[in-house]
């Protein structure tokens, strides 16, 4: 059964439509990457799941309950890292971690200690003296130190250095091994690529693509670089091939993934000397998704 199920959800703030018939499904035990540029509606969707925002229409369910009606009950099984971490300035980091964990219903002492060490965080500092990255660490430790079925992480690594980011990735994979479900919103593509089982790309309040990385790649182009005995002058006429660039015997082109076969046949007819092809990185997926919109 799906842990998170948003169907046709609409949420407006005045004239702004933050969620525009959003559909999102997150299955039990998966790390689900929730990708989109700033202002796409990622945080709004997460706040709907937290029962902080009331939807205008559509169906939302989380952990088998109604996120609005059963908010407090559902939150026993959930941990959250906000995108923009604000802490009580006169409490120490350690106090904030304890406050949130106890309100959630207790924390795992060993894990608290382990996370503090892992993220190299001094819990005695007052929150007002923490840097942005350290505030983020407090929120991460508070969430990761409690045992939950579902983790809602809203751009959790913003402000962390690469070393801490690596620690974070390791911690997420451990949670996944324990069977937890994780919704990871991000605009850092490498992070989602490294962690996610499935990915949803959101733009202007709407999920525009959703699937496993493999599925998403299937929808997209592959970049091919080849050297042939005879120049590949006729390549432009092969269906699905885009913008071939010919430099002597060397050709570079993009091909729609479902026309790869035809393209490779056309090349082999010319005598292939070398062939390199790579699937699009998430970066390229992303650029296409939004790049097209930008030019349109």
């Amino acid at each position, binding site marked *: 059964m799906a842990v998170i199920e948003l169907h046709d959800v609409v949420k407006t703030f005045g004239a702004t439509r933050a969620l525009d018939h959003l559909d999102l499904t997150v299955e039990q035990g998966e790390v689900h990457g929730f990708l989109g540029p700033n202002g796409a509606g990622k945080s709004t969707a997460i706040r709907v799941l937290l029962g902080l925002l009331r939807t205008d229409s559509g169906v939302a369910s989380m952990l088998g309950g109604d996120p609005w009606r059963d908010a407090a009950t559902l939150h026993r099984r959930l941990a959250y890292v906000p995108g923009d971490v*604000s802490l009580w300035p006169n409490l120490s980091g350690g106090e904030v971690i304890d406050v949130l964990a106890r309100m959630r219903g207790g924390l795992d002492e060993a894990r608290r200690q382990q996370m503090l060490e892992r993220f190299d965080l001094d819990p005695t500092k007052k929150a007002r003296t923490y840097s942005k990255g350290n505030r983020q660490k407090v929120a991460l430790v508070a969430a990761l130190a409690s045992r939950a079925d579902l983790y809602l992480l809203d751009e959790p690594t913003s402000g962390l250095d690469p070393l801490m980011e690596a620690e974070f990735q390791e911690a997420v994979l451990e949670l996944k091994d324990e069977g937890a479900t994780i919704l990871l919103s991000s605009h850092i593509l490498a992070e989602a690529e490294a962690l996610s089982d499935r990915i949803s790309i959101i733009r202007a309040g709407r999920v525009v693509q959703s699937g496993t990385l493999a599925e998403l790649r299937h929808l997209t182009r592959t970049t091919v670089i080849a050297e042939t005995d005879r120049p590949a002058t006729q390549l432009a006429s092969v269906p699905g091939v885009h913008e071939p660039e010919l430099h002597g015997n060397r050709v570079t082109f993009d091909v729609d993934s479902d026309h790869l076969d035809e393209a490779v046949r056309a090349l082999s007819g010319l005598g292939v000397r070398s062939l390199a092809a790579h699937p699009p990185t998430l970066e390229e997926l992303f650029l296409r998704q939004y790049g097209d919109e930008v030019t349109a």
Partner: protein
Amino acid sequence: MRTTPATSSVTGVGHLLRLILRRDRVRLPLWLVGLGGSIVASALAVPPLYDTPEKVAGYARTVGASPVSYLMSGRQVGLDTLGGIVANEISQVAQLGVCLMVVFLVVRHTRAEEESGRAELLRSTVLGRHAATLAGLVYGVTAALLLGAITSISMLAAGLPAGGSLTYGVGLALLGVAYTAITLVAVQISTSARGALGLAGAAVAVGYLVRGIGAMQDNALVWLSPFGWAQGMNAFGDERWWPALILLVFTALLLWLAARLMAHRDFGGGLIATRPGPARAGRLLDTPFGLATRLQRGLLVGWAVGLFLLGVLYGAVIPTVPDLIESNPEMADVVGASGQAAEDALVDAFLGYIYLFMAVIACGFVVASVLRLRAEEEAGRAEVVLATPVSRTSWMAATTTLALVAAVALTVLMGLGLAVGYGIGSGEWDQVLTQVAGQLAYLPGTLVVGALAAALYGLLPRGTGIAWAAVALIALQVVLGQLLGLPDAVQAISPFWHLAAVPVDDFEIVPYATLVLIAGALVAAGLWGYRRRDAVAG
């Protein structure tokens, strides 16, 4: 090579001022219209009320010579003229108003900006070290001068002498200038905007009380307070300008101090260093109520100490109230009795006003306390708590309960303060129950105001400022309601207007219980609304 224009420590102050005016294009006019409007209305209301020489002369001997008047407005000269009467009637609103205005405006654009990190962004541009302080100074001074001008003009419009009108307006403006300087020192000391507000606010309270006590006892204490200096210019009497010089020298010294402190501290730092905290949370923090208590610890302690001391001071002057009858026999006619009965009546009237005044001040606490909910929501911290199994009802109920319970405790504390002060002043220590009961007689008004803030938070979160407007209106009703001859329908907006004026009148249970029920209903409505609305600031 491009030549770089020379910069000074105040480079960029013009840009800052334009930014301030843009951000406060509603806020500053609101302060000026609110305070100025009250002053204009009062100035214009006096002449028709005192339309015969007998009435004017009577004012000087009765209202103007009452203990409440001395304590709240000081010893105003020229009370046998219309000008003196106007000055005496408006001074509480005008003097406290100008001080609070500059304190709030200056902290908002100096320490609050620095604490939020927005000032850091600005400091990264071409901006001198002292530019922000100077911008705060210019802004505070401008606001004070504008209010002084409004006051002078409204006095002239009421047909008062030009010399007195000008002197009074200048004194008022310079009082605001002096408190601008005090605030600029406070924002160097504290690292938080709330702390700076507390320090500067305490300085206002101390200045006001010192002048009041000095005026009651008619001694030199008044010369230790900026309020006393401003009043010492003797507007509408034998006007003199040298007290203005004291205000200016005092201001200059404080500005020098603020500049020194600013030059020697780190950006974001203060004189009070942030100490490390505990690595683990104590048991207190296990519940939303405990967390709310911890978050409001500073607010609670500050108000408790302040209101208790206020009670002690007022209590200490109670025993001196009857002396005023001896020095002014006509006072007995006013209270309609003689001998012991007259003394008792005068003390009762004094007490009634003090109870009411302190209960209205406590409204400031209860609104600030309830509206911490709004601050938590705007900062995104409520979101983190609500993402735990803590329900909305228990989160909001925790803070609201804390605010209302604290209002009860503060009321008891004020009563205790009065009894302790009375004991110090008279040597008699038997007033505890009387004073606590008397102060408690005004509690429901404070509770209703707090509950209104809770209702607004739940139902109309963007309109929580209305709760502050209500506090301001109630204060105006208490101070100026009679003078302005407001119709009952308007006065009835203040919950305090419905309560029996203990100890002058006998306690009445019906309005008391009704107000408590109304407070309960308002809180319930707020909780109902909060469960239904979006819980994210928008």
